[in-house]
């Protein structure tokens, strides 16, 4: 008995050893660069010491939760948390419906060539980095010499400090986010729209339904599952934070609203060497994100939608 299993395993390995050779590099990669860092998470519960390994460092006070308590009594962290939530919520409210509307619009375009051109152009900003976009924005919105303010002043309005005053900065930040991603995010909706049976549209036009009614009664219900899955995923990311976008667009004048968790971790952790505190902050954020994602996914599956896991 034993011998045949061993023999069978030997045969299996002789046929498939190359697969394991192929996998060895990626798996090593995941272990070294994704899993070993996880052992460093314990720094959040320990007093960081440059000269000791993570396993040897001394435990932090308050049953190891010293740095979590410190983080939550830290004003800057509090603001970073608030800003993360605020900017993500605004992004959701403005940025989520935008690609749906654009996809509906593109779908209604009667001229195929023009549709192709439009798509090519609106996808393009997705491929620009936030550094480039901040370069574009600084020039476009420059206080006196930028295009937008030149035009505003010619029309008799006051110049607007788009990037140098907190409220205006938030609006500009959200707008640039839509500018960068709206086109790209239509792809998934357009793909869903192609899946809708053309017969439905024919039947509707026989019944005399106009364009708006076709959109409302056929196209929108047709992409509803996609909308729900994407909405849930977006909700799951509500406490996540990008780094490049707020870091590139922010400046000293708007620190109060542009500092988010990721930039807080960078400035206080890597620049300021407060490793235990910022590891605790990062862990808090990761855990909340996983909980939100799992929760959102369960809700999606309960409502009969395909989950994301």
């Amino acid at each position, binding site marked *: 008995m034993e011998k045949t299993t061993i023999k069978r395993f030997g045969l299996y390995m002789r046929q498939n050893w190359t697969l394991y050779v192929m996998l060895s590099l990626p798996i090593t990669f995941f272990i070294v660069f994704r899993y070993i860092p996880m052992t460093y998470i314990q720094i959040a519960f320990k007093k960081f010491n440059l000269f000791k390994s993570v396993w040897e460092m001394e435990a932090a006070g308050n049953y190891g939760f010293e740095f979590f308590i410190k983080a939550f009594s830290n004003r800057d962290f509090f603001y970073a948390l608030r800003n993360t939530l605020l900017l993500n919520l605004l992004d959701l409210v403005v940025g989520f419906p935008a690609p749906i509307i654009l996809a509906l619009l593109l779908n209604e375009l009667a001229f195929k060539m023009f549709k192709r051109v439009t798509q090519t152009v*609106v996808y393009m900003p997705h491929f620009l980095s936030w*550094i480039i976009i901040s370069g574009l924005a600084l020039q476009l919105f420059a206080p006196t010499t930028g295009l937008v303010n030149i035009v505003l002043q010619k029309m008799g309005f006051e110049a607007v400090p788009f990037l140098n005053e907190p409220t205006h900065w938030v609006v500009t930040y959200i707008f640039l986010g839509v500018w960068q991603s709206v086109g790209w995010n239509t792809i998934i909706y357009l793909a869903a729209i192609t899946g809708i049976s053309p017969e439905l549209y024919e039947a509707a036009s026989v019944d005399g339904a106009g364009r708006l009614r076709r959109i409302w009664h056929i196209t929108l219900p047709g992409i509803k599952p996609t909308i729900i899955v994407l909405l849930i995923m977006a909700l799951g990311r509500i406490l996540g934070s990008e780094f490049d976008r707020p870091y590139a667009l922010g400046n000293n004048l708007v620190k109060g609203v542009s500092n988010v968790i990721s930039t807080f971790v960078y400035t206080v952790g890597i620049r300021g060497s407060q490793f235990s505190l910022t590891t605790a902050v990062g862990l808090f954020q990761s855990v909340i994100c996983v909980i939100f994602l799992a929760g959102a996914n369960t809700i999606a599956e309960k409502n009969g939608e395909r989950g994301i896991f």
Partner: protein
Amino acid sequence: MIKSRGAKIADWIIVFICVIIIFVCLLPIVNIAARSLSSADALMRSKVILWPVEFNVDAYAKILSDVKYTRSLGWTAILTVICTALSMFMTIMCAFPLIYNNLKGKRVFNAMIIFTMYFSAGTIPNYLLLKDLGLLENALVMIIPNCLSVFNMIILRSFFYGIPESLKEAAELEGCGPFRTLINVYLPLSTPTLATLSLFYAVGRWNGFSDALMYITRTKELFPIQLLLYNLLQNMMSIDIATQEGFTMPGVTEGVKAATVMFAIVPILIVYPLLQRYFIAGVTLGGVKG
């Protein structure tokens, strides 16, 4: 189907809206191109809108004669090529074995890989690991730690799954092992997806900023173009403030700033339309099915 007059008017209204959207998408780029080609004086007098005023290429000449910029552009280009090649290799090596249903340990491998999509150790643990590995201030730190994207791997795996099993079996009957099946059957059939993923990796590296910012602070010759551009934009900010006190000529630096942004944009604008026909197929494939 014959359209009513109202429907035709509506068609043109939609076209009009799309023209406005196209205009808004292109406006910042046209503006910066115009600024990069205008004279310093015209920039200062707020004359430049969509067309260069007092056309000249001084800003470009200045950048091309400054070794700091040319070195960084060259280095970023080399880095992009190396990273794309390595990433594609790793992605293929990871995706292909996972389509074998009889692969022992497949579920463990899958779970292990997918888990990293939802939970990561975080900025600081990653930083400390790279520090312990001695990779800070090293060119490898911009190549290895992000050389495999799970998202891209899943796109490729979904595509591989879509290739009929019978082709694989036929290749095996011919005596091909997994490796030759991959080279002779799977890769030739996946060129559109491979092109798409290469584009994603290449753009990601060309645009990559935060890893360089965090891991490379002193070794200036390793600064990729995005980091150089960021530093330039930040410096300009302080110079902007200085000019209000009347210290420097802002026009010159404005033009250089615009030209540097152009250098960062142009490679993307060149590559992007060439690959555009591929990536839509690639994205919808992985994006919807996950």
